[in-house]
């Protein structure tokens, strides 16, 4: 391989203070521009894996590298600079409901502008332009000055995506981005993520609970079980037996978004 990986885990371990194991020694390499779906039952370490990439959950041992740079374990300017290149999308959107959509998207620019400018809402014109383009990409331009809390769930998640895009990131982490959305909105948001990955070439790592979504939207599927990597392969070739191995049981209707479709 000539290019350096976008993300590289080397024997990455996370043990929480209560003794729970988040990651039990993960070795994983993700190339620039890949669209990777992470699956596993709850508590398997999916969130921990994503949060290790931007240092929200520091590793206990081992290392994670983002574009060749080791993710620091301590808060500080070095970690902030690294986080600036990594956008994150959350299950519960995590936008400030009282502020306008525009302000929420501009939060994606905080690492790029001087603190005093952000403080007094004096964002440079270039950064406002970046924010507007991010909103255009998720089809939310006309909502720019609406209070974020007045939007529907799917629209709020689009604001979350626009905030991540405003960072002009090399990597996007999406932690269960559709878990609080209805099926129709779920497919729209998943299509948005795939389209952004294809159009902008942003390396994308998505945690999903539903197997049919993983197979439909993932290019590469990574399976976690009890903090260990138990599957890594193409979404086209993943089998029922693989899912059984990842989940430690037979997948049932609860693991599918469209309950009618066969797994």
């Amino acid at each position, binding site marked *: 391989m000539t290019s350096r990986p976008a993300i590289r885990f080397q024997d990455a371990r996370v043990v929480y203070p209560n003794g729970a194991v988040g990651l039990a020694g993960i070795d994983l390499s993700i190339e620039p521009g890949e669209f990777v779906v992470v699956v596993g039952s709850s508590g398997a370490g999916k969130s921990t894996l994503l949060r290790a990439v931007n240092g929200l959950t520091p590793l206990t041992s081992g290392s994670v590298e983002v574009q060749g740079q080791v993710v620091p374990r301590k808060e500080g300017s070095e970690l902030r600079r690294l*986080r600036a290149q990594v956008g994150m999308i959350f299950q519960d959107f*995590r936008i*400030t409901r009282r502020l306008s959509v525009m302000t929420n998207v501009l939060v994606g620019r*905080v690492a790029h502008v001087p603190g005093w400018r952000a*403080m007094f809402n004096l964002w440079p014109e270039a950064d406002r332009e970046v924010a507007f383009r991010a909103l255009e990409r998720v089809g939310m331009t006309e909502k720019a000055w609406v209070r974020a809390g007045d939007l529907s769930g799917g629209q709020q998640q689009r604001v*979350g995506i626009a*905030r991540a895009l405003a960072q002009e990131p090399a990597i996007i982490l999406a932690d269960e981005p559709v878990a609080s959305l209805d099926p129709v909105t779920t497919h729209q948001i998943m299509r948005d993520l795939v389209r952004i990955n294809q159009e902008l070439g942003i390396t994308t790592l998505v945690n999903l609970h539903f197997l049919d979504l993983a197979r439909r939207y993932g290019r590469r599927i990574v399976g976690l079980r009890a903090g260990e990597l138990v599957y890594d392969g193409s979404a086209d070739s993943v089998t029922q037996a693989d899912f059984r191995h990842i989940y430690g049981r037979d997948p049932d209707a609860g693991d599918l978004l469209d309950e009618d479709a066969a797994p």
Partner: protein
Amino acid sequence: MNDSAMRPLRPARNWALILGTLLGVTMMTVWSARGIGFSLTELACNLPGGSRLLVESWPPEFSYFPRLLAPLLETLQIAVVGTVIGGILAVPVAVLAARNLTPGVLVWFLDRNVMNVLRTLPDLFWAMLFAAAVGFGPVAGALALTVFTIAVISKLWSESLEAIDMGVPEAVRAAGGSWLAMLQFGAIPQALPHYVSYALYAFELNVRASMILGLVGAGGIGMVLETQRSTFEYPRVTLIVLSVLVIVLVIEQISEAIRRRLA
């Protein structure tokens, strides 16, 4: 099967505890009343004296009102200055005292103790202190109310800040935001309605307090009150008390209306 047989028996009352508490409270009250020479018979004998004071105080001397305008205005000005400066200074004090936002345990500990000292010492103490420092007059009153406002708002608001959802602040950090950006875009907007509510409450308290502060020479209507009281001009005292009552009621109505809009 009889259901009532399954029901647990009502536990016996702890009569010893109930009677013991009653006895303890009674004994403490009798002991305290004797200590301060409080007796109901004496109170009954002296009631005519009190009623004479009320009779002498009525009707209020309305013709005195024009001379109250300037001191009343000064009272309001003292309250405004104290509330605004204190309200601004309370922001960092409250943030550093909120366990979920404070940058360090040591800062948190020191700030908590400063808050406790501010709150424990009464506003009259601060008024006397500042009167000694900057001389008798409204500036001493405004400074005393500044301290009082910091004490009130920081205590109440730090608890509101501790109750916010930490998801959005974490999202700001994930975007590479600094501690200040996390506060500005993630934490403070959530607790802003509480802040406004507490600031209005502090203003009400300050208008009331500025009547008392005059007693120790800290300016405002209280100084007029003290002069008139010491020269036995009771109808004027009544007018002063009524004027302050009206002002406080008006302010309460206005701030209640603002709070309702915020909710």
